[in-house]
Structures are given as structure tokens and as C-alpha cells.
């Protein structure tokens, strides 16, 4: 069923996945060593889907990734340095230490930073696409990523319906990773398949095996082409398993061994590696070399960010409005 994915494109996708995976592993180590403020949230098991979204987008498109989209973020153009700066609280990071970990983005570049309220960024992408249309920019598309849990929110339903009414070029990508924190899908929805939710709104759907990079790339490329061609919003549902806890504070003991042993529990990295070696005939030493190079690059970036230090609360610009003269004076009643 897969159409042929170009060898170089597959390699590119794999290397983003690899970078995301190593970055995650290093962040987990830093977290365990007490070197991270707040939580660490990994994308283990979701890299194939995530990178396929990011790699399907062009400059000028809009991307609202979620928690487990490290690979997609890199593919959309995020640098390792920006990712690390945000996770380690550097004032030089994209959120300038005002928000951390996976809450990062560069709205001016179409990269929408997530808030913690699930489903809330879908309509933000809708609005960006409506704006582009009003400005006469009709070639761009947008993608919003969510998990199975977010499909229960009102924001999801309102935004999906809105995108359908406005016929927006939206890719709404659901990583059905079987658990929303500890809640299994049986307690999250009662429909047979999540894609049924989109059909109710008149939205086209695509189901894909989220552990299969090639299938993910094929599906996302097709969906993106449809959206770009004016076919309206496309909902993509990928079946996969989160291969870690919700965050590194969570040992994920609730994940059923049966699911782990099933096809959905496969590690997309292992599967992609097999494809590289067998189908695309890459020598194993190439893959080893990529791992070494990427690890070195990440370690160097970590050292740099750690040397940058944290924000200075005394010189920090404590203004919540762009119109500075309309900010309430600080502690006005305490002088």
C-alpha cells in the first residue's frame, strides 16, 4: 500500500527521529540528575508519526505540535539549541524562561507554542489559516497534533467543526497512543474508531499504523496534498503506543503488557531502522555514525546552554502587555 518514499527523504526523517530520541534520553538523564526545572515529557514511540507531520509542512505553513512531537518540531525547523534552551530554562530560549519544556514555539514562523489545555491549539491553527486566506495566501496549510485524550474535549469538537465549515486546509493529527496519562481508551471514547468522530463533521479521515515510518510519511504526504489542493480539513488517526510515562515522573505501570507485546507496541525507531538497513540497503556503520554525531552535537549544545545560565528576576521585563503604558503598576496597592 505504501508508495515509494525517496531514499534521501526517508533518511532525513529517520535522522530527525534519531535526534529527537537521543535528545529525549539526555533530557531524561538531566531530569534524574535534578538538572531540569519542572517536568520532562518524552515522545518515545511517537517519532515516526511526529516527523511525518513536520516533514510534510513547508516554510510558511502553520504547525501546532503537542507534547510528544520533538521529531516533528525538528523537521519543521526547530534547532536542538532552542529545544534545550526551553527545557533547561535559558533566557535565550524561544520562551525566554517564561515557559518551559514542551511549551515552546515561534509564532512568527508559524510554529505555535502549546498551552496545557488539550485541543486548544486546533482553533488557533484554524484562525491562522483563515487569516492567510483573507490575506490571499492560499498555498499554505496547517497542522495541529493531539492525542486520543484531547478528542474528548469541547475544544476539539468546536475546532474540527469550524475547520469543516470554513473548509480550511488543516491536518488534524491524532496520535492514539492508547493512554491519556493513565486513562485507557476504553474510558476515553466509546466509538469504534476515532476517525468516526471526524466523519460526523464531514471531514475526510486517514488511518495509519503509527509505528511504521513509511506508512506515516505516505499518509501525511497524501493528506497534506489533499489539504493543499483545497479538499478541506483532513483528520489522521495513528495507532501507536507511548513507550514511556506521561512524563518522567510517571513509571507507567498501568500500561498493559498485552498492548506492549502487540503490534501497536512496536518501537517505530526499530522498525524504521530495519527499513533503512533492509529496504534501503544502508550500511549499519552509517547509522552508528549518525548516532555518534548526533549525540556529540546534543552534548555540546547541553554544555552551551548550561553555561548560559538562568534568567535574572531583577532585570526581567515584568510586562504582560505589548502596550506598556497600560500595564497596571506593579503592586500598586503596596507601593
Amino acid at each position: 500500500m505504501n508508495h515509494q518514499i525517496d531514499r534521501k527523504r526517508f533518511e532525513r526523517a529517520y535522522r530527525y527521529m534519531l535526534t529527537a530520541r537521543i535528545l529525549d534520553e539526555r533530557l531524561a538523564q538531566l531530569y534524574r540528575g535534578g538538572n531540569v526545572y519542572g517536568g520532562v515529557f518524552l515522545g518515545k514511540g511517537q517519532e515516526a508519526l511526529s516527523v511525518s507531520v513536520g516533514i510534510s509542512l513547508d516554510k510558511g505553513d502553520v504547525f501546532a505540535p503537542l507534547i510528544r512531537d520533538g521529531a516533528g518540531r525538528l523537521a519543521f525547523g526547530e534547532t536542538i539549541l532552542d529545544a534545550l534552551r526551553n527545557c533547561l530554562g535559558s533566557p535565550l530560549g524561544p520562551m525566554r524562561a517564561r515557559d518551559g519544556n514542551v511549551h515552546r514555539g515561534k509564532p512568527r514562523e508559524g510554529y505555535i507554542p502549546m498551552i496545557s489545555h488539550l485541543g486548544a491549539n486546533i482553533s488557533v491553527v484554524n484562525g491562522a489559516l483563515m487569516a492567510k486566506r483573507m490575506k490571499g495566501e492560499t498555498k499554505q496549510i496547517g497542522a495541529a497534533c493531539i492525542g486520543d485524550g484531547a478528542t474528548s474535549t469541547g475544544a476539539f469538537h468546536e475546532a474540527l467543526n469550524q475547520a469543516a465549515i470554513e473548509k480550511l486546509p488543516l491536518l488534524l493529527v491524532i496520535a492514539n497512543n492508547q493512554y491519556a496519562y493513565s486513562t485507557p481508551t476504553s474510558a476515553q471514547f466509546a466509538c469504534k474508531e476515532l476517525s468516526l468522530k471526524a466523519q460526523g463533521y464531514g471531514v475526510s479521515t486517514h488511518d495509519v499504523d503509527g509505528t511504521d515510518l513509511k506508512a506515516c510519511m505516505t499518509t501525511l504526504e497524501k493528506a497534506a496534498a489533499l489539504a493543499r489542493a483545497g479538499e478541506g480539513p483532513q483528520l489522521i488517526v495513528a495507532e501507536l503506543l507511548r513507550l514511556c510515562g506521561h512524563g518522567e515522573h510517571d513509571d507507567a505501570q498501568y500500561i498493559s503488557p498485552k498492548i506492549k507485546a502487540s503490534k501497536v507496541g512496536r518501537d517505530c525507531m526499530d522498525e524504521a531502522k530495519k527499513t533503512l538497513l533492509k529496504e534501503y540497503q544502508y550500511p549499519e556503520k552509517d547509522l552508528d555514525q549518525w548516532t555518534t554525531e548526533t549525540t556529540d552535537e546534543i552534548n555540546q549544545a547541553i554544555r552551551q546552554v548550561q553555561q548560559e545560565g538562568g534568567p535574572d528576576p531583577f532585570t526581567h521585563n515584568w510586562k504582560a502587555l505589548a502596550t506598556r503604558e497600560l500595564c497596571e503598576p506593579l503592586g500598586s496597592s503596596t507601593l
Partner: protein
Amino acid sequence: MSITYLEAIREAQAYLLRNDPSVYIYGQDVGAFGGAFKATKNLAKEFPGRVIDAPISEDAMVGSAVGAAIEGMRPIIEMQFADFSTVGFNQVVNQAATLFWRTEVPCPLTLRLPSGGTSGGGPFHSQCLESIYARFPGLIVCTPATVEDAYSMLIESVMLNDPVIFCEHKYLYFHLKADSLPQEALPIGKARIAREGRDMTIVTYSAMLHECLEAAAEMAQDGAEIEVVDLRTVKPIDTDTIIASVARTGRLLCVAEEWPWGGVNAEVISRVVAEGFNLLDAPPQRINAKDTPIPYHPDLWSVHRPTAQSIVATARQLLRN
């Protein structure tokens, strides 16, 4: 020629649509129908593609406005009633209000909230929610009380590079008329002395301004000179103008249609007590609506919110203190 408060809002939007291609209006029934109150009457026809009907999805309406603002647009979102904005609350306070702080990318959007009670409105078509929004950093909250302010403050709100909660009062839509639209205006953030006096300061805003002016006129017959301050903007509050007025009068009464717990009255009194305690000749007082949901029947509603009568009664008591 005379123009109503509601027509001023429509005219302000027409002006904005005419003069700035980044402005558009999105809300339920705002298109060909012209809005539940006709605040967008004929605008869809005059500005094709820029006055857009929304589904009944307040969350998505506000969320999309944030996305459009990021893209450089200046959306005006019409909530059919302020009461329904609670359905879009998350997008307002967590998305719009935090965007600039998080990213240094401005979020210029204006949320129009048809606010406040009218006879027969009942619990879900009468609410005043200005303090709920004022509570959150990153928002500006306007509460125009006059036709002139409805016009000039709406234009200024849309041109600001921040999210503005524009609380327009439904009671004033048809009741209030002016001879013409203003050529110049006080900026957002500045309060206005609506009536000068030296015996007491009443601080108020929105529809309550007119109850307070009526009360002040009645008390003038007894020789009491009441100064009335129209806040115009409740976030930020123009503390300087309030303190200067209290310095002249020595007495403070705050009047608001919203519920009593916390809110604008509490904030004003807190500031005056903290920054101008020595200026006070008597304990400051406040009048709000009763702490119940808003009643439907006109006889109940007429005593639920502050009125000129209840303001006069409290003000007289305060003058005796």
C-alpha cells in the same frame, strides 16, 4: 441628527473595516443578519468576506482569533451575550492573555461582550463579567458608559496590540443617544470626571454611571455636591484620577452592577485605602448587585442591581458619617 450607543458601535466597526484591511468581525449571526442586536447591520454587505458568521462555538471563535492575530490580523469577536463568553473563557485567559508574555508576539484582538442587565433578561443574558477578565494579566478591559466612548474606545481597542475585553452595556444600546460622533477622546486607561463636586466621590462605570448621575442630581437638590468619576477602563484602573478626586472630597462610594465579591469596587476601595487612607473622612462604601443570579422578573431585577434610589440612600448615609 442623533446616534445611539449601539449605532456608535456599528459605526466604529464600519470605520475600522474601512480603514484597516486587517480588521474582520467573527461571531454568531453577525453576517447577513447583522447580529442579534444589529451591531453589524449591513457590514457583511459593505465588506464582503470580512464579517463572518461563526458556529455556536465560543471556544473556537476566540481560539481562531488568536491564530489570526498571530498572522497580523485584528479580529473583532462578537459574543452574542457576555454571558456566553464563559464558554470561550479558556481561550481568552490562557491563550490570548498569555501569548505576548510567552512569546513577545502581540495578540491584538477585541472581544465584544454585550453585557449587563435589561428588563426580563434573566440569569443568562444579563451578566457583567468585567472583573473576571480583569483578574488575568495580559488583558485590557473597557467599560464605556457613553455614546462617545462606545465609539472612540472601540476604535482604540481594535488598534491596540493587546487583547481587549470590550464590555458594552445592553441597557445603553437604545437608551443612550448623542448628537454626533466624537472628533477626539480621552485615551483608554484614563478615567473622566463626569460631574464635579466637593462633598463625595462616586466611582463608577458603564450603565451605572447614569444611575449615579441621576442620584447626584437628586442630592444636589439637598445641596450636596457629588463628584462622579467614570472609570471608562477597569483594567487598568486610573488610580491617580480617583485619588485626586478623593483628596478633594474626603468620601468615597463605589457603584458597580456586577456582583459584590471582589471586583472593581473592592479594587478601587483597596487602592484608596492603601494609597490615600489619610484623605478619607469616613469609611469608603460600595454598592453592587445582590449576590444572587440575576432575576428575570422586572420587579425583582429592579432591586437586584444598584439604582439611583439605592445610591442616594447609601450616599446620604455616607455624608452623615
